[in-house]
């Protein structure tokens, strides 16, 4: 059982603030992913939880117990490092046993745990090898195995897949997910890859410049991003943003003008006022080619990326806005061709000038 709570956690290096007032409640058994661009403070936040760094202010609690001054080893957590951090001069078996020997665990128990982890991660065949003789994927498994044998209350994983090639990353991602399902232990995972975050997390914490931008389930973040940053960060390709104006705000509906057309929204757009300038977000996956009888936004195709299962087009509207669309299937479109694109009004996301979502 491990519930991890962060209250107003701040971290500064000299005058430079890296984390600002982080409040977070991680439930037992959750798979929480910290995601954000490079330098947003996600690894720093993980290190505060691990005990490898002390927060400048604020409290970190594990199962209600304040652990700010508890050494890393006594927090009951295990960490998997980006570089794996395997001891290069020790065999895989010695790497797995090292932490357990520190705790003066009986040899029989150590052997039992190693055997169990080796079976679970399928690393039994190379327990006698050194890390330098293993592939990246095998090293990754050993690093996870070293965490597993400690039987921790929570796993902390700092970009564990970033050194693997794309194919291996996908398979390891699935294995990690399966491992979490099997162990049901709290996992906190740091990544800058939003696809990794979306596929693994039960909840995602989006960070930017040391602040939490939004916390929610992957679909929450995808469907109702709290601000422009989250909207742009979650989802690939990124959400399109075009300038627009609120035309009318009613109790059950509203309308906005964008790209030279006025669109009626089937929702009230609470917080908006008529005439207000807004930024309107539209996911590329929510755009399609307009049918002959459909109204649509005329665009000129600037680039076509035929990916087989889908076709990505980069286009420019008559008002000069750039629109990226992901069209299902294959389309014989050419650069310079004029087409009309359509979208459902319900898929539009409205953000005010500060970038905050307008319901």
């Amino acid at each position: 059982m491990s519930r991890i709570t962060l209250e107003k956690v701040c971290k500064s290096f000299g005058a430079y603030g890296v984390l600002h007032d982080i409040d977070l409640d991680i439930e037992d058994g959750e798979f929480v992913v910290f995601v954000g661009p490079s330098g947003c403070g996600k690894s720093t936040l993980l290190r505060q939880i691990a005990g490898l760094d002390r927060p400048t202010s604020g409290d970190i609690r594990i199962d209600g117990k304040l652990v700010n001054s508890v050494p890393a080893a006594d927090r009951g957590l295990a960490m998997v490092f980006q570089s794996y951090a395997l001891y290069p001069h020790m065999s895989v078996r010695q790497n797995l046993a090292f932490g357990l020997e520190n705790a003066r665990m009986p040899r029989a128990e150590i052997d039992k745990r190693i055997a169990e982890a080796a079976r679970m991660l399928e690393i039994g065949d190379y327990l006698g090898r050194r890390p330098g003789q293993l592939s990246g994927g095998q090293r990754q498994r050993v690093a996870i195995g070293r965490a597993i044998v400690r039987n921790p209350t929570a796993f902390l994983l700092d970009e564990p897949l970033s050194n693997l090639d794309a194919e291996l990353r996908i398979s390891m991602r699935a294995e990690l997910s399966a491992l979490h399902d099997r162990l049901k232990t709290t996992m906190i995972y740091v990544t800058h890859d939003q696809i990794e975050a979306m596929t693994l997390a039960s909840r995602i914490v989006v960070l930017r410049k040391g602040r939490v931008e939004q916390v929610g389930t992957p679909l929450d973040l995808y469907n109702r991003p709290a601000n422009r940053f989250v909207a742009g960060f979650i989802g690939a390709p990124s959400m399109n943003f075009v300038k627009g104006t609120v035309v009318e705000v009613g109790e059950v509906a509203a309308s906005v003008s964008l790209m030279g057309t006025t669109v009626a929204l089937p929702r009230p757009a609470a917080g908006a006022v008529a005439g207000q300038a807004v930024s309107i977000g539209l996911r590329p996956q929510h755009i399609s080619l307009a049918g002959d009888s459909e109204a649509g936004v005329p665009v000129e195709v600037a680039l076509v990326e035929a990916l087989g299962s889908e076709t990505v087009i980069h286009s420019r509207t008559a008002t000069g806005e750039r629109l990226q669309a992901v069209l299902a299937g294959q389309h014989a479109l050419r650069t310079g061709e004029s087409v009309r694109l359509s979208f459902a009004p319900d898929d539009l996301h409205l953000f005010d000038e500060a970038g905050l979502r307008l319901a």
Partner: protein
Amino acid sequence: MSNRHQGKDALPAGWLGGLMMVPVKAAMQVIDMPLRAWQRLTGLTGMASFFLLPNMAVFGIFVLVPFVINFVYSMTGGSEIFLDQRFYVGAAQYRDLLDCRSYVDPSTCVEDGFWIATRNTALFVVVQVALMILTALITALVLNREIAGRSFWRAVFFFPVLLSPVVVGLIWRWILQRQGLLNLVLYDLFGFEPYSWLTDRNAAFVAAVGVTIWARVGFFALILLAGLQAIPKDLYEAAEMDGTRRTRVFFRITLPLLMPNLIVVLVLGLIRSVQVFDEAYVLTGGGPGTSTMYLTQYIYEKGFASDLRDPGLAAAASILMGAVLVVLTLAQMAASRRKEKQGER
């Protein structure tokens, strides 16, 4: 076509560049044809040998030829310097050097000075190398920590390495001699009577060991410091997460990962220690008596300085000492290779 050809051969921009290229081009034209002919004749390997030639020539003239001459000297007798005035004695010099009833008792040896120097050198090497590695390791560990003024301290520890060994010897003689700085300070602070640090057998030995460590430790600490900095910080953090005690971190992580650097330090330290001369000679002159006379000093005095000069004996002694150094170097290479193989395994 002709324009393109002109462009290819055009001189670098600027008259100075053009001027500089003239002799280069002239030289190239002169050597181009013979070089090509040589390459056709010998292939690429032959060309490599050709370019190695200047270095091999320098090595040959200043190392190989003197070595051979030295070996020839070791087979001759007499006190004359010029080879044509000396007479062939075969292996007699080696026989004299190695002729002992008991090797642990120099007084039973024909050439007792050689064995006294050998015994002194052996003791010096064992004590000095052990203490120096320990000091260098401690220094490197301290300098690797985030202490205040770390760069300053690193410079301070490295500074003596830049000094000439003779200067090192002189500085410490001024400090340690009877009327030296140390006695002055001890008298002023504690009222201690002046002590003859350099004329007491044990104190002179300790001084020779201490001064050579002081002079060289910065160099060896630097090698170890580089090794320490090459150990990824992640490993220490992983050890911290594993709840590893500091002593265990040192013996199970730092020391094994520092081993390649330690082997280098050990062998370089051994070689330099066997060759000890300048600092010790200036500091103690080999005394009191022969208590700090080391092999190099013996060879120097036999070959050049003593009244009973015997260049042949000195040459033979230097060949024997060279053999010891070759063994040490081979041991180092074997140890490094074994370590590399272990790393691969």
